[in-house]
């Protein structure tokens, strides 16, 4: 099917320019530009602009991004190259700053596993003992340790000193007491507003963390922009001051030089007068 081309149909000209038109459309435009000087000029100008576009190259950048896996025992928030799912690269300006939770493929699973009861009890004992030790240390710094705390510390330290003297019943009692105390501590220390609702899902938690991180990033960007603007302003004002100072110094030097020249002329005039008199 033959087509006709209307002079000024720019979309058709663009198709022709990029050689993305039907053969019939192309034939119609060919026939038209053979007669129309305006369209020939328009096409030549567009081609010229395209040619000049080719000179624009992005600066060379060191990229080499890679997604890397963590090494087993070294999962750490401060080591981006070890974090699973983290893109690392030498040119990455924010490589260390971008340790967002979404950088992970999925949540780590070790902490979701259920541990045996003995391990949980041992961990609880360890944490409680550490807490007591800190409490005792804090108390001794403060100068007074409540007697009750000392008694509990002694009781908790006893198994470490002589494990053979402790019976199973005592251990069970200790575990029960520890659990009760930990539950009390949890309810007493966590403010009601700060606690995550018991039904909160992991995805919600992640979303909340992401939001917080995004907000923090935005704040940092705003601060950075403000500080950069401040630095530029300071730089400009300092430069203006320096320029004014330099100008003043030049003026003084010029003034001094002028005074010296005047003195020398006066001296010369005086000498000439004296030589003429003789």
């Amino acid at each position, binding site marked *: 099917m033959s087509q006709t081309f209307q002079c000024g149909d720019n979309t058709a000209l663009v198709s022709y320019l*990029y050689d993305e038109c039907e053969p019939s459309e192309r034939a119609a435009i060919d026939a038209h530009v053979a007669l129309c000087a305006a369209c020939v000029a328009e096409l030549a100008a567009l081609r010229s602009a395209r040619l000049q576009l080719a000179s624009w190259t992005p600066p060379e950048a060191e990229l080499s991004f890679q997604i890397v896996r963590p090494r087993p025992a070294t999962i750490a928030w401060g080591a981006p190259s070890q974090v699973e799912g983290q893109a690392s690269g030498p040119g990455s300006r924010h490589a260390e700053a971008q340790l967002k939770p*979404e950088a992970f493929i999925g949540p780590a699973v070790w902490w979701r596993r259920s541990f045996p009861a003995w391990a949980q009890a041992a961990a609880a004992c360890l944490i409680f003992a550490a807490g007591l030790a800190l409490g005792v240390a804090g108390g001794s710094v403060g100068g007074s340790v409540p007697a009750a705390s000392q008694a509990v510390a002694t009781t908790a330290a006893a198994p470490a000193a002589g494990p053979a003297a402790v019976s199973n019943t005592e251990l069970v009692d200790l575990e029960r007491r520890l659990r009760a105390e930990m539950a009390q501590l949890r309810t007493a220390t966590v403010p009601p507003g700060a606690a995550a609702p018991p039904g909160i899902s992991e995805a919600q938690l992640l979303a909340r963390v992401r939001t917080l991180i995004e907000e923090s990033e935005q704040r940092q*960007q705003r601060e950075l922009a403000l500080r950069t603007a401040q630095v530029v302003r300071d730089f400009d004002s300092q430069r203006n001051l320096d320029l004014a100072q330099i100008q003043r110094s030049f003026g003084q030097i010029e003034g001094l030089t002028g005074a010296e020249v005047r003195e020398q002329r006066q001296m010369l005039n005086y000498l000439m007068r004296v030589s003429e008199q003789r």
Partner: protein
Amino acid sequence: MNVTDEDLVARSRVGDLDSFNQLILRWERPIYALAYRVIGREEDARDVCQETFLRAFRALPGFKGQAKFSSWLYRIALNLCRDWIRRQRRTPTVQLPDGVDPSELAAEQGPVESIEDLVSRRELSAVVEEAMALLPDEQRTAIVLKEYHGMTFQEIADLQGVPLSTVKTRLYQGLSVLRRHLERNGRTPQLVKRV
């Protein structure tokens, strides 16, 4: 044997990190170039490039191969560029002017190109970059995708989510603005052979 993107994607989807890293190696330069030409800042372009691959990696389980992997990557990168541009409009930062240091230019190039040619090319490049920065985002993106990434009108239309005719109009308007800017800056039209 040349492994296709699709093969590498399939392997990456079952947890083969090396395959995904091969995809990164293949596509990081084009994605960086795209980001640089759209947003115009080297460090931010690098960040966008990194974030593109990170997002692609995380979203890989959801990528079912409806589109080409490269088109999918371009889409992610363009979305990130669009977010970056929006953020910049909200909180504009102060940019220090870039000076051209001929000795630095000479140091970074091999002996093939003379200093004069190099400086001249850099100047033209700077003028083109300046002209591109004048364009509205949509026109600039259309030109970048067409001129530097060789996409068809249809591919650009799909990526930008607009009709084919809109893509052509954007290209025409963008090229016209560029042409006028280049002429104003003493860049006379070069002789072009008619096709």
